[in-house]
């Protein structure tokens, strides 16, 4: 088959098709916005009410919360029919709204003790759709259990961020700590050089710095009210009472031993405890790492 050069009409046709398609593609962009307010039966604005916006054509659900003034905004929605629901403290409100492309639609919801969807919900073949369906308020949960708590979520997020740094730094600390232990063989014997001792000391200092930075993130991570410590994390925390003081004591004893060695003396007195204290400290640190890594 011979290749035939495109006629002059082809580029023109492509241009026309492109011009036709472009607005269509643009129209499919989810650029509608839903805004509104949530008020209590008495008319007061409700903050932190959970807003659920369900696209009745696709079943996609977007969620958000009202701000301190009881307002909410759900941007980037596709045009179509939506079911908007708000719930707080056992009170509910449901409303239906149709969003047009590029438009900003406002829906104001007033919470009542029982609010049922106005129309069948969902695209699931056997999804609940009758007005007789049970609601969350029927189940007898306390408001504390069902109410969203954005402040606590922020606290949990902060806690996780800090503990992740703690974990990473703890793992990094293990590397210079092992190197410090290895170099201690050359630093503490009878035939040691200043260089061996200095390398050991520098590695120890690096380990110590990393350790205390890591510890800072664990200590400063916010605690969550009403949570008791259970499981392997108890062992991890308990071991900190061994390697924590050990990490303070080891460099002090090491500095004394270093001085005595440099003076040509045999390590004596309290400085002689540097090695045993370091071993216990490193052992506790290793056990702390394992306590959160392995299940027991």
């Amino acid at each position, binding site marked *: 088959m011979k290749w035939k050069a495109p006629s002059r009409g082809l580029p023109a046709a492509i241009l026309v098709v492109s011009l036709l398609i472009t607005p269509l593609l643009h129209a499919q962009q989810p650029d509608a916005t839903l805004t509104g307010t949530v008020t209590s039966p008495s008319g007061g604005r409700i903050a932190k009410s959970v807003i659920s916006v369900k696209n009745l054509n696709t079943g996609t659900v977007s969620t958000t919360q009202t701000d301190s003034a009881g307002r909410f905004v759900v941007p980037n929605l596709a045009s179509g029919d939506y079911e908007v629901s708000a719930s707080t403290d056992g009170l509910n409100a449901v409303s239906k709204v149709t969003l047009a492309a590029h438009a900003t639609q406002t829906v104001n919801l007033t919470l009542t003790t029982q609010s049922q969807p106005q129309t069948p919900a969902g695209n699931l073949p*056997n999804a609940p759709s009758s007005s007789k369906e049970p609601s969350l308020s029927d189940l007898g949960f306390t408001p504390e259990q069902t109410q969203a708590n954005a402040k606590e979520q922020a606290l949990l997020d902060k806690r996780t961020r800090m503990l992740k740094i703690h974990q990473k730094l703890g793992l990094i600390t293990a590397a210079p700590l092992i190197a410090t232990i290895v170099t201690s063989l050359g630093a503490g014997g009878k035939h040691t050089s200043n260089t061996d001792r200095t390398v050991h000391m520098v590695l120890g200092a690096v380990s110590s710095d990393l350790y205390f930075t890591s510890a800072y993130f664990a200590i400063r991570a916010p605690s969550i009210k009403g949570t008791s410590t259970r499981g392997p994390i108890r062992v991890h925390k308990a071991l900190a009472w061994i390697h924590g003081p050990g990490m303070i004591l080891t460099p002090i004893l090491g500095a004394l031993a270093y001085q005595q060695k440099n003076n040509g003396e045999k390590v004596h007195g309290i400085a002689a405890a540097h090695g045993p204290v370091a071993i216990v400290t490193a052992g506790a640190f290793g056990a702390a790492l394992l306590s959160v890594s392995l*299940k027991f």
Partner: protein
Amino acid sequence: MNKPKLIALLPFVLCTLALAADTQWVLQQCTLTYHVSHPLHQTDGISHAARGKGICHVGQCDFLIAVPVKSFDSGDSNRDLHMVQVTRGAEFPMVTVRTRLPESAANDASIQADLEIQFAGQTAHYQHVPFQLTKQGADVRLSGTIPATLTDFKIEPPTLLTLPVKNEIPVRVEMTWHPAQ
């Protein structure tokens, strides 16, 4: 209409009323267990705090089961708090499961349910999830596994020692439903 005709119609009227009357089911006992796999750990989080209700109307029953996210216990408080954080459990404190089943399903040995689950601010649909049913007197015991994944709910996989957990988090369901009028 004379008296004999009224008496003759009475059974039909009563049958119609009986069919139209709502019956209800109450979740009497429930154990939900999620399973998380990590290269170093296999973890199960268990909750017994679920509550549920089913309302039957003209042969169809709508069920709602809800459980607080915080009620799951994996045996380690740090892991549980981390689970609540990644699943945005303080912001969206409840997991809800909705399904609709024919009233006659209570007599079957197994069912396939279409579930709508709201969790972590997202809604996921699971179709034809198999459950085994056993009758214990008037109660119905139901067991099965929901093939949930982290991506279904847009949950970032938690990591331990920089290794993420597997995407699959199957949830084992053991429930006992009691009929209540």
